């Protein structure tokens, strides 16, 4: 298929294709990290994760509208405010949901799945009632539009790069939080042995709530980032839920590194296959391979140990 192209053209395409995979990767990482915390650390299946993401996206949309009308001079920087707001809004709602619903269901993981699915239906319809069924797009500030022209053929979209950087920052921050902070130590203690953790004076209920809120907050930031390259509609969140869960499970549920590795593998595989065989079949094959591997190796790529 590369007949009639110069070597440099082919090289450029490979570079661009790698970048396409990377930008898919950053989207996957953003979506999966929040879920990985909640699922991996707490064993809770949050089917409403996509809807939390969309909440973050709508928060960004509202913030951009606000800046456009009232603070046009600061429009260039609204995005950072929007991300912080998205995190806070989603984390607050997450804490509320944990308090009202999730904490009653910790022993019934399958039931959390159903209850959060119900929650996702309600959230979707709420978005539809409030924002309308139409997809909304946010206006990007000038500096985010366009692309870096590395060569004639190789162009790196600025918003794509931006999302990538956010993904890396969040992943790094999360790593520090989980493995280098007192809070992280407590979370891991609760995961490994709840009664013992409680016995040494850790407030496990508080840790649970904070972790759930953190996961939802990250979903919100993901949504804020995502709305720059995709669209935001009431049911956009649902489209990602299967991919995201597969990434987390494939990575090995309790491993953040595993989540990142699996997001990388799946995104590169999908994007490479898309290049050679087209979207639908690429998606089917990627999912099939992942499911196939999971059947052979149920514990995922980097699990500590599986006891299910």
């Amino acid at each position: 298929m590369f007949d009639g192209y110069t070597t440099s053209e082919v090289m450029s395409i490979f570079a661009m294709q790698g970048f396409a995979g990377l930008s898919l990767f950053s989207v996957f990482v953003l979506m999966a990290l929040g879920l990985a915390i909640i699922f991996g650390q707490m064993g809770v299946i949050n089917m409403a994760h996509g809807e939390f993401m969309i909440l973050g996206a709508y928060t960004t949309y509202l913030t951009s509208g606000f800046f456009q009308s009232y603070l046009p001079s600061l429009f260039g920087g609204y995005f950072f405010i929007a991300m912080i707001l998205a995190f806070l809004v989603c984390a607050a709602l997450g804490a509320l949901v944990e308090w009202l619903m999730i904490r009653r269901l910790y022993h019934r993981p399958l039931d959390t799945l159903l209850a959060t699915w119900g929650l996702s239906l309600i959230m979707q319809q709420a978005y539809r009632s409030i924002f309308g069924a139409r997809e909304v797009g946010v206006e990007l500030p000038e500096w985010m539009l366009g692309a870096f022209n590395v060569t004639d053929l190789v162009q790196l979209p600025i918003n794509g790069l931006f999302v990538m950087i956010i993904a890396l920052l969040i992943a790094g921050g999360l790593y520090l939080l989980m493995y280098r902070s007192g809070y992280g130590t407590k979370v891991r203690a609760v995961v490994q042995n709840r009664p013992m953790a409680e016995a040494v004076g850790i407030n496990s209920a508080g840790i649970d709530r904070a972790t759930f809120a953190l996961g939802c907050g990250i979903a919100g930031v993901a949504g804020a980032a995502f709305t720059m390259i995709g669209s935001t509609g009431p049911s956009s969140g649902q489209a990602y839920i299967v991919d995201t869960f597969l990434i987390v499970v494939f990575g090995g549920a309790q491993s953040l590194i595993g989540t990142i590795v699996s997001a990388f593998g799946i995104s590169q595989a999908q994007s490479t296959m898309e290049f050679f065989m087209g979207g639908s079949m690429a998606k089917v094959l990627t999912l099939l391979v992942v499911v196939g591997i999971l059947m052979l190796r149920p514990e995922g790529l980097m699990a500590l140990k599986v006891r299910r």
Partner: protein
Amino acid sequence: MNNSALSKWFVSREGVYYLLLALLLVVILPLVLDPFRLNMVGKYLTYAFVALGLVMCWGKAGILSLGQGVFFGLGGYCMAMFLKLEASSPENTAIQSTPGIPDFMDWNQLTELPWFWEPFHSFSFTLLAVIGVPVLLAFIIGFAMFTRRVGGVYFAIITQAIAAILTILIIGQQGFTGGINGITDLQTLNGWDIRTDEARTTLYFICVGMLFLCLFVARLVQNRKLGRILMAMNAQENRVRFSGYDVAAFKIFVFCLAAAFAGVGGAMFTLLVGFMSPSFIGIVASIEMVIFCALGGRLSILGAVYGALIVNAAKSGFSESFPELWPFAMGALFIGVVLAFPDGLAGLYRSYVMPLEDRLFRRDKDKGAPVAGTAASKPAAANENDDEPVIDNYSPEKS
């Protein structure tokens, strides 16, 4: 009251419940509803097959599959392929560039029938495939997963992914499958026009008949030792394993059983509705099927039927009068059932209605009232050997 007398109680009472359901489905609804509404009830009942399967594999054995739509769809597609071939006789499709193949294949430049369509010329093969194809897939999935002790949440997510894969595949391969439109315009079954009111009513009764057959099978499984092992597995998998039972084999069996039920339901759906499309396979459809089971009571065989009927009827009703409210209601239903009534309607019935009944029955029995007596004694005789209560004590606080 000693133990055997107590079990007699349950058995006889259970018989009454089955009779009441039969009365409702076979006598009352057909009398009250016009053929159009009756057909809709028939459609709801096809979902009861899936819910019944979920009672067996989720409620009893603790295996939550979020991909039951796959089996429902496979059963439905098998039936639809047969009907489509019958509708695409060379005479009917004379205007096509290749007469004798389904219209959507012709539109996609296929010039001959794909090999996997060929066997569906045969009705007996189709009937076999309606059950066989879903069971085969369930066996493959189940074998791969359960022998490696994958379960719980992992299993749920993987079945969900399978639902997603199959949907994309069917939509993408539209030359072979009809794509997103599905397989439409099905007309006759072995020459019998299935679109008329009479045919639809007949099909409704066939559907009810099949449902009772499946209920019977489910009940049989539940009341044998098999059923108790399933329940035990759900509560303490390792103890069952250590007692020498092959846990994986039991799980595979019950998952295949659920797939078979769903396949039959799908085939009935195709017959009653007149087409099949990928929208019944996908993730959303599959999760909705779980709520039918959860609302009825995840442990109750009869609850599955009522759950499917009530949720679907409510859905139709709501969407006619308050379409915007339906998703809220559905969401609240999911949350409410899980948080407040984990045993669903069957649980509510057991805690509130049954005590009333007990009082009533006792009084009746003291007086020797003939109504309750005859109704209760007949099924009691039929079920003499069964000694298992319908609803066990279920503790949601399992690990």
